[in-house]
């Protein structure tokens, strides 16, 4: 009888451990933000573009940056600190090409296709025949809470994709857009005394 009980315990132990591993794996998979876009298709544009801007800020780097912004005694920085309180990540890709139509529009359309997934809502859609410009702005909300923003701008000579994860004050960002000056911050260099102000 004891053998039977031990066999049952062994069998259930194996089942529980397998379930725990599967649940952990599922949890890890779902831990990736739903508002996060996949920029893999754009990696091939790097070789073709004249100028490339790629910025990925999340996790510890973002936390560090937030702390620095909070400490900077600058009017704009204070507004920025207020705007990015709920920010979880920000990903930017900007490609500028020498000539027109040097990239495959299908690559950008693949990014736009991700924004057709449930959860994303179109905020703005602008099409202009001038420079073959297409502008799309999408937002994702879970209830009343903003989960993300995506901006996709494609022209004949440039592509810009911005993916913001988390809550961000869009109006404030628009107000500060192009006006954000990176203030001079002195860094101690090895062996060099810092000049007194």
């Amino acid at each position, binding site marked *: 009888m004891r053998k039977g009980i031990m066999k049952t315990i062994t069998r259930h132990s194996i089942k529980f451990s397998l379930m725990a591993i599967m649940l952990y794996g599922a949890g890890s998979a779902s831990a990736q933000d739903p508002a996060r876009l996949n920029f893999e298709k754009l990696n091939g544009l790097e070789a073709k573009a004249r100028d490339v801007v790629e910025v990925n800020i999340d996790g510890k780097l973002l936390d560090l940056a937030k702390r620095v912004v909070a*400490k900077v005694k600058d009017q704009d920085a204070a507004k920025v600190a207020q705007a990015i309180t709920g920010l979880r990540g920000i990903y930017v890709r900007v490609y500028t090409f020498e000539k027109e139509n040097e990239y495959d529009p299908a690559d950008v359309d693949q990014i736009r296709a991700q924004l057709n997934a449930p959860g994303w809502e179109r905020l703005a859609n602008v099409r202009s025949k001038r420079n073959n410009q297409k502008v799309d702005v999408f937002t994702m909300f879970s209830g009343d809470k903003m989960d993300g923003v995506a901006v996709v701008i494609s022209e004949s000579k440039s592509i810009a994709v911005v993916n913001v994860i988390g809550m961000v004050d869009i109006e404030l960002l628009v*107000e500060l857009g192009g006006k954000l000056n990176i203030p001079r911050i002195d860094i101690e260099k090895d062996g060099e005394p810092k000049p007194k102000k």
Partner: protein
Amino acid sequence: MKDDYLWDNTGKDSEIEKIESSLSMFRYKPIDAPKLSVAESEGSRRRIWDLRYVLVPAFAAIVIGAVVAGLWFRTSSDEIVAKIESGIESRRPAQSDPATGDKIGEINPQDAPLVSPPHKAGGQGDPRVAMANRKRAIGPKRKGVEPALTREEKYAYDRLMLALSITGSKLRMVQDKVNGLEVEKTGSKNER
């Protein structure tokens, strides 16, 4: 019939011997008794330490424990880091410089968090590199020198500002586009 032969097999009895020979195929053949284990012979009072029944539950317990620990570390690591850093900040001495109204960075480089400049945009580097960078950033202490941001902090700040600047400018562009279209529409309506 003599009874001695039947009793102790002594003497001779032809009739009995005849019967015995005819029934010899049914004779009892004694065999050795089966060897019983000590536990069985003692009525299985002792516990059976079958290795199989110990290892598998132990392994399952280790796996479940590892999964729970992983989940706990994931959820609490950020809280722990925030608590440590808030503790570090509370220990920093208060500094004030009335001469510069826009003083930046009351950060002691010795207490800089473990974040090293990433190899590529947005990544995180080796903690040993972070330690080396931190030591380089500290330098010799001099009297009256204000502490400034570390390289890691400046890098993070610059990257964030760049990303926000680009985001803001693109959003502004969209807003201008939309506003421009609205102006065109109202203009065409007024003409009619």
